[in-house]
């Protein structure tokens, strides 16, 4: 797969959409297989954010997977705040070259670097902060963005958050700071699937008008359909063009929890449970193996 990506990069900075779609199918296979393998983990949000991760790691980010450095000087940085969707994060990191794909089989097993929620503790390349306890990642991404400004490093800091995570107060502390202090080198995205553990966000605690809220806090707000990789790539590009103009950028990404596996789609039921053998077979039948299972 590495050669496949390199070949594309030789021709153009922009990979073909159909190639990205192939990677998405493989990442989705990884997600359901990893979660099935240990009968635990979070497939729903992982499947819904697959296009976002693939677009980011295979198209948008300027990064150095083979030579991971914590400080990431001169590189774009990504922070996953809703750490429970670690399966899609780990699969994408492995598939883009941060570590060997075969390590995905260790997910959530004793002595693994692929902990249930991402951590720096075991030294997994590609992870720069622990996440899982929600609401903290925007502040960390913001701090990293401030460090880039101090270092006169003009790369961008990206972050991803759950929509349920918007219920955490710390998010709004960071939102207020970023706009007030013109942190315009950060592009955050909300996985807007409308679901959380206890039900829909509408039932649990309505988020109200998220776009209006972020605009009121002083952010530039974009929207995209997270299921269409071409749209994800183009929106992330548009967001990148709008950095450096005095405002932090928030993308509301409409997604469907469980995207790509029909019986998992659209329900909070698959937030944090694993498929059984029969369900795994049914899921894999919908997800062609494109670049090789781990």
């Amino acid at each position, binding site marked *: 797969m590495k050669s496949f990506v390199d070949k594309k990069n030789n021709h153009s900075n922009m990979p073909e959409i159909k190639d990205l779609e192939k990677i998405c199918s493989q990442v989705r296979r990884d997600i359901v297989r990893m979660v099935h393998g240990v009968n635990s983990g979070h497939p729903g949000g992982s499947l819904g954010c697959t296009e976002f991760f693939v677009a980011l790691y295979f198209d948008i980010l300027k990064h150095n997977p083979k030579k991971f450095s*914590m*400080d*990431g*000087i001169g590189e774009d*940085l990504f*922070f996953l705040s809703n750490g429970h969707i670690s399966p899609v994060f780990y699969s994408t990191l492995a598939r883009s070259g941060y570590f060997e794909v075969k390590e995905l089989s260790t997910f959530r097993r004793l002595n693994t670097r692929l902990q249930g929620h991402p*951590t*720096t*503790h075991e030294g997994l390349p590609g992870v*720069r*902060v*622990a*996440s*899982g*306890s929600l*609401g*903290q*990642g*925007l*502040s*960390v*991404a*913001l*701090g*990293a*963005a*401030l*460090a*880039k400004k*101090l*270092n006169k*490093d003009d790369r961008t800091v990206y972050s991803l958050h759950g929509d349920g995570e918007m219920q955490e*107060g*710390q998010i709004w*502390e*960071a939102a*207020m*700071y970023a706009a*007030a*202090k013109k942190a315009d080198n950060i592009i955050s995205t909300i996985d807007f699937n409308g679901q959380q553990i206890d039900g829909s966000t509408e039932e649990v605690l309505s988020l109200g008008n998220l776009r209006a809220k972020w605009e009121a806090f002083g952010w530039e707000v974009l929207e995209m359909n997270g299921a269409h990789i071409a749209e994800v790539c183009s929106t992330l590009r548009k967001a990148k063009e709008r950095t450096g103009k005095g405002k932090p950028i928030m993308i509301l990404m409409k997604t469907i929890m469980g995207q790509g596996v029909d019986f998992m789609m659209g329900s909070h039921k698959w937030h944090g449970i694993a498929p059984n053998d029969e369900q795994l077979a049914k899921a894999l039948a919908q997800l062609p193996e494109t670049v090789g299972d781990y």
Partner: protein
Amino acid sequence: MKYSASEKKDTRSGFGAGLLELGKSHPNVVALCADLTGSLKMDAFQKAFPERFFQTGIAEANMIGMAAGLTIGGKIPFTGTFANFSTGRVYDQIRQSVAYSGKNVKICASHAGLTLGEDGATHQILEDIGLMKMLPHMTVINPCDYNQTKAATIAIADHHGPVYLRFGRPVVPNFTPANQEFIIGKAINLQEGTDVSIFATGHLVWQALEAAVALQAKGISAEVINIHTIKPLDEGAILASAAKTRCVVSAEEHQMNGGLGDSIAQLLSRKLPTPMEMIAVKDSFGESGTPEQLMTKYGLDAAHIILAAESVVRRKQAVTV
């Protein structure tokens, strides 16, 4: 007494002075403050290095998270707010984004303990040492005076890893040497003695020295050791002193549960069971009052250290006989 109380200064000003020096000597040191710049004495740093100072507003959780993020890119962030808002309010942020993530953040906490005074118990945290020392790999430091706080502030910049630095509001005797070398985790034997060991931290170190003078007059030779670093604990110094005197008193401006005495008791019970008394707050919140009134009411002064020392010496003698 070989130590003089003639000069009195607040430990928080020692922090401010140390931070200003770090600004000059360490270009990667940055500072964050949650709307308490004057109280933390961070204004000199802010004025001298405005581009490296981050005013976060009254948003401590975001401050801790941003500090964690600033380390990514090589910065050495010093956060400043009251001890209460530096620990209890942001415990999960410190636990996940700083400690578990191994980030090089220095959490600097003023107005710790009862000596915050009149503002009362909402602000007088007495649990912060316990909260911080429980976190794996967290270093916990509680210096005793202005000079030592300044030296500790400078020293922690060169220690890679999360640190909790605790200091206070009132002016207290400034008796340790200016420009002292501060070695993290190395206890300082301030006064040798043979009958009882007094292990003190923070504002109680001076009280322990005063107690030692009074005890001498009563025929009790007290050894006074300044445990400025509660974690990692200088086990060697504590065990050596306890082996010599065979009875100990701990003294701190903190709850008994989770404090310095608790760490020493754990050590002694494992390695060298020794009669012990603890000067600490006993499962209580504080209240409004002057620092002096509160320290007396809650038993955190030289008079109470003297009583504890006499008591533990009697216990030792009872065991020996």
